[in-house]
């Protein structure tokens, strides 16, 4: 059975079978809205909040997805399997892509999807 997944941030819509995880279906559909990292529930790059719909999920790295976040409907797209049409809001991973040195920031060629913000809670 196939369902429709909508990425709210990019407006992209793609189909996802119930046996396929949301991230893999997105990659197969050549959509780009959710950042792709390890694809295996470890790095947190593909963190989204499901705003509409039902899903099942598999075990995810607790260091990048807290129990509180999970209770609020946050998941890693690579470990999420639709049970209905879904609508998702991309959170991604927000490690700082720049490192401060003596007040001056330097960046090393990495500014695309990672937003410059406070790192996730240390665990």
């Amino acid at each position, binding site marked *: 059975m196939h369902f429709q997944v909508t990425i709210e941030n990019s407006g992209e819509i793609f189909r996802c079978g119930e046996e396929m995880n949301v991230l893999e279906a997105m990659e197969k559909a050549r959509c780009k809205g959710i950042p792709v990292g390890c694809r295996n529930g470890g*790095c947190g790059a593909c963190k989204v909040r499901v705003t509409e719909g039902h899903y099942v999920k598999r075990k995810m790295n607790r260091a990048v997805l807290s129990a509180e976040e999970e209770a609020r409907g946050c998941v890693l797209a690579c470990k999420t399997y639709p049970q209905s049409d879904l609508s998702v809001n991309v959170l991604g991973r927000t490690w700082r892509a720049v490192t401060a040195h003596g007040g001056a920031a330097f960046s090393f060629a990495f500014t695309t999807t990672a937003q410059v913000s406070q790192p996730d809670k240390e665990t």
Partner: protein
Amino acid sequence: MALTGVLRPGHVAIRVLEMEPALKHYRDVLGLIEMARDKENKRVFLKAWDEHDHHSVVLREADEAGMDYMGWKVDSPATLKKLAGDIEKSGLCSNFSWIKAGEHPETGERFRFTIPTGHVMEIFAEKKIVGNNCGTDGENLNPNPWPDGLHGIAPSRFDHCLLYGDDLDGTIKLFTKVLGFGIAEQVMTAADKTFMIGAFLSCSNKPHDVAFIRQPVKGKFHHASFELGSWEKVLRAADILSRTKTSIDIGPTRHGITRGETVYFFDPSGNRNEVFAGGYIYYPDKPAITWYDETLGPGIFYHDRQLNEAFLSVFT
């Protein structure tokens, strides 16, 4: 004996979310040999085929991915005691403890400490030598070049880790001034040529036994790497990864840093692995190679000449 003190990376302990898929990956796809299980602590111990010591990879089932610790084999119990004292006296480390013999199977006591970048490290002197199963008339007698029964990618050894952490200066000081490592290659900022972003450290003739990159995090794991004998074996490894639908990060390609030929991929818990070939012979008197941040792209991925999005942001 010319190579003394810290001899090599002896083991890496990796947390996995589920043991069964992890074992399928590390044993059946990567091709490590399962050596022992510890049901009580949900651990499995494995080794690569050409390693003589009992194990080099420890998998532990946990709620978080990442690295528990990395262990270093030193040349003798006397060196273990001396280095443990030096590490404590250095003022650079914390959380010291002695892990009793047998806590890892077939392994002597280990001294455990946390380094400035937040990683847990151990040193140990004794682990049972089980051999590489190549001998024809007894262990190490008239050996074949490789043993029967290899499967999967089958690297020869666990080779090194790349780790991410904040206090790079403290960790580099520990490894170079206390543990006797040399800097084979370093990455500095072009704006301030004294500010280090990364260092590739050797305790042997390898271009790196461990590497660190400065990131605003504590104790993070970028990858554990395993050695293959040739570029063609790296290509074959990537064939196996594709055939088994393993998540490939990048490659096969070449690193500018260390010159290694490489493919990066992920275990089923999102921990990055590497298999690589090549590199060069490092000696303690070899001048350090320097890269600047503006050339980090070809330094890491020599053909693409730019970092992929995952290199700096995807780790466990």
